[in-house]
């Protein structure tokens, strides 16, 4: 499996010379205060943001040199807004993930539905789904394309803690299959407890990168967020409290 790497990327007013390497088979969390450039970095990793400088490499190839359809086959992107404009059936929604392959591959759509416990909902219109079910359906849409890279912008934001953990379990299963999972996360405790690697952005620059305990240390939180906070609890079940 190939690495995905940002090389010195700059987007005027958003990102300032960010370099970062993402490993397949792991969950990487991108954290940072509002306006730090998290969503821009994630978009750039899918070649959806116009770069003013630098490039994104998939293996040794620049993303811009890969045809959109080929890139779409390899990199799945889940935007934050979760739009579904028309009241299509869940199965049709998930089948959109097959678009880069120009097939409907019913077996792969069925597998993606099953992976997110949506088989029973397959023929229901999306308007009848709850928020948690809708988030799962949108993730299943990306999984149906079986991408090498799964980039998701705040996939857990609108979910209650039960659904957050369910979705994280699915994302972990994807990483275990070798998929590179990159998530923008606001909730630092979720990043601390569930990511393999954390990248912290502050004002468009990479402020820290490494294992969660290192990149989200109390010193870095104080420096980047300007908040005095303290981690309590055991590894894997930590909570952040404000002092």
């Amino acid at each position, binding site marked *: 499996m190939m690495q995905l790497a940002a090389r010195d990327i700059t987007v005027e007013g958003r990102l300032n010379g960010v370099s970062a390497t993402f490993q397949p088979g792991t969950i990487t969390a991108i954290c940072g205060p509002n306006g730090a450039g998290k969503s821009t970095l994630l978009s750039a990793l899918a070649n959806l943001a116009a770069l003013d400088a630098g490039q994104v490499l998939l293996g040794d190839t620049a993303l811009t040199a890969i045809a*959109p359809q080929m890139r779409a086959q390899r990199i799945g992107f889940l935007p934050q807004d979760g739009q579904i404009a028309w009241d299509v059936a869940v199965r049709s929604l998930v089948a959109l993930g097959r678009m880069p392959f120009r097939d409907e591959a019913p077996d792969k759509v069925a597998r993606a539905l099953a992976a997110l416990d949506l088989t029973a909902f397959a023929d229901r219109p999306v308007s009848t789904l709850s928020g948690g079910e809708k988030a799962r359906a949108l993730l299943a849409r990306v999984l149906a394309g079986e991408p090498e890279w799964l980039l998701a912008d705040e996939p857990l934001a609108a979910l209650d803690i039960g659904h957050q953990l369910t979705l994280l379990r699915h994302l972990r299963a994807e990483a275990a299959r070798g998929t590179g999972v990159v998530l923008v996360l606001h909730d630092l405790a979720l990043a601390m407890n569930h990511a393999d690697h954390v990248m912290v952005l502050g004002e468009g620059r990479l402020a820290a990168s490494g294992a969660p305990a290192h990149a989200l240390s109390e010193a870095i939180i104080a420096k980047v967020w300007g908040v005095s906070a303290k981690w309590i609890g055991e590894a894997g079940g930590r909570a952040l409290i404000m002092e």
Partner: protein
Amino acid sequence: MPRISFPVLVLLGLIAVTLPLSLLAGRVWIDPAHTPNAAVILADLRLPRSLLALVIGAGLGAAGAAMQGYLRNPLADPGLFGIAPMAALGAVASFWFGYAASAWLLPLFALVGAGMGMALLALIAGRTGGIALFTLAGLMIASLAGTLTSLAISMAPNAFAMSEIVTWLMGALTDRSWREVWIAAPLTIAGIGCLMLTGRGLDALTLGSAAARSLGVRDKVLQAWLITGVGLTVGSGVAVAGIVGFVGLIVPHLVRPFTDRRPSQLIVPSALAGALLVLVADCTVRILPLVTELRLGIALSLIGAPFFLWLLLRMRRGLA
């Protein structure tokens, strides 16, 4: 390619029944066995008029379906985005300069107007491929074309030209011949072909613009096909029949509940339903016992405007 779905079969069946009936219907009902000159009336007057109704309706229906899919808004009408008003402006110019006396020049001017509308839209919105810019540019072009049309009417060289313009703008299929069919049919068919090519991209847009691009949709290419398709269908429709409103707005709504609601699956059924609607509407205005024939454009607006209000009321209930 879209499969032949159940709604498509039903609509084809309805058109197959309605078309022969429409040939017989009119101020004078034709009995093929007894009416004198029945063959001539059918072949030279009624058949081209009915076919033209089908062609224009199909173009408007398909353009409406594609436009609603592209803007992700069920209230979008293809006439709103500059191309139809520019085509009308072209036609008005031909009246203004007195060229409309030649039967080929009026549609030609209208097509040139439609082409200029398409070019303007592509020039302004095509650089980024963005949807917001497309919408605003389209509305501004429509507004400008409308204003220039009003200017042309207010400054018409003589009363005759003014009345010609006003009457023509109301849209009708009265006294149309095979010539108009030969102008509109090939362009409309080509336009519907372009719109069908947008289907896959429109489906992806269901998830929003960023997700669509991440699925490999090239937004500038999609927009170019859409502008070409709408330009050919709506432009050629206006060129031969004037402004026929509301078909592109209403028809996708009527058809959508019978499809799986994916925009790509709506284009062909909307084309067929639009064809059927305009055919039936045109027969109705022919049959109505009025002193002068009700203009088709007015008749459709009389149906369309209350429908639009009902739609808004229903959506308001949904939002409340």
